[in-house]
C-alpha cells in the first residue's frame, strides 16, 4: 500500500498483543497506517501476512536493527522458574537473563543472518567498524530490504477475490501484492561518543537501501534530544544528501512531560527536518505529537494506548501487564482505571466528558475494561487529529492547553498537568 492519502498528522499504530487484532479491524477508520516490528513480523509471519492483508492499510516494518549494536543482554529473555513461573534472580537480586529471545533468534537465523548472526555468536554488539566495509553493509541491506519487501507483501488468497471491487471503483488492481508503504534501512543509535562513525554508517545504509528498492525509503534517525539538538545541522544535511523519501524520527527516551528545554529542542529539530520538504514521522509519540504538527510533523506512531515513548536501551523482554488506562483528551494524559478513574467523580467535571462511542455506551470511565479503554483511545485520538486536519490553528491550540492547565493545575486528583503549560510555552515561544 502506498503512503496514506489523508493530510497529516497521520496516525500509526504499532502492532502489539494479538488481543488488539479486533480493535485494529473494528476501528480501521481511526488510524492511517500500521507499524510492524521486525521480530513480530518474523515470529508470527503467517498471522501478520494474513492480518496486514486483511486490514488493507499502509504499513511499514521496523527492522529493529539498532538492538544488535546494543548490549547483548538486552535481546535476551528473562529466565523463569519452571515450577513457579517467576523470574529467577541472581545472588544480588538482579533478574537473570537466558538465551536470545525466541522472536529475535528466528529473525536472526531465518532472515538477517550474516554479520548479525556472527556478532551474536560472539556475544558482542555490532560496531560501526563492522559495517564500514562495502560487503558487510551491502549484505545487511540486502537481507533487511528483502525481509521487508517479501515477508508480508503477498496478499493472502482469500482477499484477492475482493480485487474485483477495487477494479469496479476504477482503481488499479494490486495483483495480489501488498508491499509496505516504505522500506526502512537498517539503523543504529546516534547517541554517545561514536556518533560520527554511526552517522556515516547510517547514511551509507540509506544510500545502499535506495539502490535496492523502488519503494519509498524512510531512514530512522534515532537519537536523544540532546544529540539531536547538538547535531541538528550535521544530521539533517548528511541524511538529506542521500535524498530519502521521508524520515522516521525516534527521539530516544523522550517523553512529553520533560522540561520546556527538551520539548523545544525536539520541536526545533522536527521543524528543521520538515523544512527539507519530506514527510517526518515520529516512530514513538504521545499527545505532544499533536503540538509537533505545528512544527511540520506529518505523522506519529505508538501502541494502542501504550508505547508512546521508548528508550533504545529498554529490554526487549518486557515483564508484567500494562494496567488499563483512560485517556483524558482535554488534559492530554492517561489515568489508571483501577484507581484514579474509579476515585474521580466524572459527573463533577462536565468538560472532561467524552463523546466517543465507547463513552456514550459506558459513561463511567472507572468501569471500562482494557479493550474499551483502548478503543476509547483510538476514537479520541482520531477526533484530536481530525480537529488538526480541519485547520485548528496554533494560537487556538496553545490557548486551549493553557486554559486546561489553569483550570486543573490544582485539582487534587487530576493534577499534575504541568505538561500542558510547557507545551503551550513551546507553541507561543514565551
Amino acid at each position, binding site marked *: 500500500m502506498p503512503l496514506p492519502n489523508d493530510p497529516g498528522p497521520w496516525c500509526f499504530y504499532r502492532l502489539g498483543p494479538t488481543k488488539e487484532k479486533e480493535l485494529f479491524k473494528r476501528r480501521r477508520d481511526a488510524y492511517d497506517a500500521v507499524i510492524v516490528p521486525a521480530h513480530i513480523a518474523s515470529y508470527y509471519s503467517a498471522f501478520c501476512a494474513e492480518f496486514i492483508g486483511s486490514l488493507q492499510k499502509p504499513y511499514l516494518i521496523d527492522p529493529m536493527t539498532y538492538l544488535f549494536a546494543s548490549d547483548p543482554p538486552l535481546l535476551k529473555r528473562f529466565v523463569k522458574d519452571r515450577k513457579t513461573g517467576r523470574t529467577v534472580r541472581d545472588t544480588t537480586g538482579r533478574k537473570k537473563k537466558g538465551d536470545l529471545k525466541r522472536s529475535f533468534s528466528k529473525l536472526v537465523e531465518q532472515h538477517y543472518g550474516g554479520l548479525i548472526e556472527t556478532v551474536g555468536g560472539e556475544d558482542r554488539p555490532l560496531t560501526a567498524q563492522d559495517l564500514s566495509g562495502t560487503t558487510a553493509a551491502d549484505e545487511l541491506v540486502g537481507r533487511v530490504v528483502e525481509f521487508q519487501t517479501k515477508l508480508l507483501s503477498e496478499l493472502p488468497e482469500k482477499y484477492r477475490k475482493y480485487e474485483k471491487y477495487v477494479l469496479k471503483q476504477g482503481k488499479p488492481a494490486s495483483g495480489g501484492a501488498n508491499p509496505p508503504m516504505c522500506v526502512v534501512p537498517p539503523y543504529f543509535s546516534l547517541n554517545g561518543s561514536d556518533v560520527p562513525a554511526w552517522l556515516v554508517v547510517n547514511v551509507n545504509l540509506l544510500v545502499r537501501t535506495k539502490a535496492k528498492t523502488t519503494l519509498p525509503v524512510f531512514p530512522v534517525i534515532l537519537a536523544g534530544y540532546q544529540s539531536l539538538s547538538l547535531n541538528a545541522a550535521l544530521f539533517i544535511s548528511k541524511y538529506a544528501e542521500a535524498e530519502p523519501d521521508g524520515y522516521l524520527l525516534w527521539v530516544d527516551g523522550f517523553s512529553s512531560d520533560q522540561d520546556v528545554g527538551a520539548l523545544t529542542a525536539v520541536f526545533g529539530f522536527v521543524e528543521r527536518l520538515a523544512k527539507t520538504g519530506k514527510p517526518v514521522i515520529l516512530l514513538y509519540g504521545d499527545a505532544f505529537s499533536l503540538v509537533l504538527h505545528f512544527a511540520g510533523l506529518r505523522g506519529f506512531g505508538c501502541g494502542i494506548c501504550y508505547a508512546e515513548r521508548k528508550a533504545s536501551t529498554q529490554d526487549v523482554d518486557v515483564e508484567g501487564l500494562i494496567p488499563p488506562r483512560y485517556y483524558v483528551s482535554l488534559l492530554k494524559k492517561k489515568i*489508571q482505571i483501577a*484507581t*484514579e478513574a*474509579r*476515585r474521580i467523580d466524572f459527573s463533577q467535571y462536565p468538560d472532561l466528558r467524552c463523546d466517543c462511542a465507547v463513552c456514550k455506551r459506558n459513561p463511567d470511565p472507572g468501569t471500562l475494561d482494557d479493550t474499551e479503554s483502548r478503543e476509547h483511545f483510538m476514537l479520541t485520538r482520531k477526533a484530536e487529529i481530525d480537529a488538526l486536519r480541519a485547520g485548528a490553528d496554533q494560537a487556538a491550540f496553545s490557548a486551549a492547553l493553557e486554559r486546561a492547565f489553569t483550570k486543573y493545575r490544582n485539582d*487534587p*486528583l487530576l*493534577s499534575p498537568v504541568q505538561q500542558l503549560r510547557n507545551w503551550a510555552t513551546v507553541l507561543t515561544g514565551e
Partner: protein
Amino acid sequence: MAPITDDHSRRRESDLYAPLFALFGNHSRVFAEVPFFGKHIDLVFGTAALARLYAVETKLRDWRSAFKQAALNQLAAQLSYVALPQRLAGRLAERESSLFASYDVGLIAVGERARILIPAKRNGYFDRRYYRDLKEALNRATKSHKPRDMGVLRDALAKRSRALVLL
C-alpha cells in the same frame, strides 16, 4: 498565596514513622510499603483480624502527591490519612481544611508526637472488593514475612527497595 512548605529538619519520610506507630498503638498489625495497583501505600495499620484498615501516606514536602495517593487509598482502606511534619500540617489545616474535608482525607501532624488535625471519614469510594484483595495480601504477608524493626525498614527504604515490610 505563598506555597505551603515546611522546615527540613526531618530528612526522610521514615523519620515520621515512630510517632505514627505510637498514634496507632492500639492497632496490632502494621505494614509498610504495601503494594497497591503499581504504587505503594506507605503505612497500613490494621486491627487484629484486619477488619478495619487505616492507610497513611507520609511526605516531607510534596503534600499534593500524598493527598492524591491518600484519596486513592480510600478505595481499599476504611480510613485514609496524610501525615506531614508538624508545621506544614498546621498550615494546611488552616488553609486547606475544606479540601481535606471534601475528600474525607484525614490530616496528621507529626512532631515529637503525632496528632490528628483533621479526622478521616469513610466515604462511598470504599470498595469491598479492593478491601478484600488488600486484606488477603496483608494476611499472606503476615504468614510469609517475619516482623521487622524500624532499622530494617529504614535500610530497605534507603536502598529504594519497595518490598512490603511487616513491622
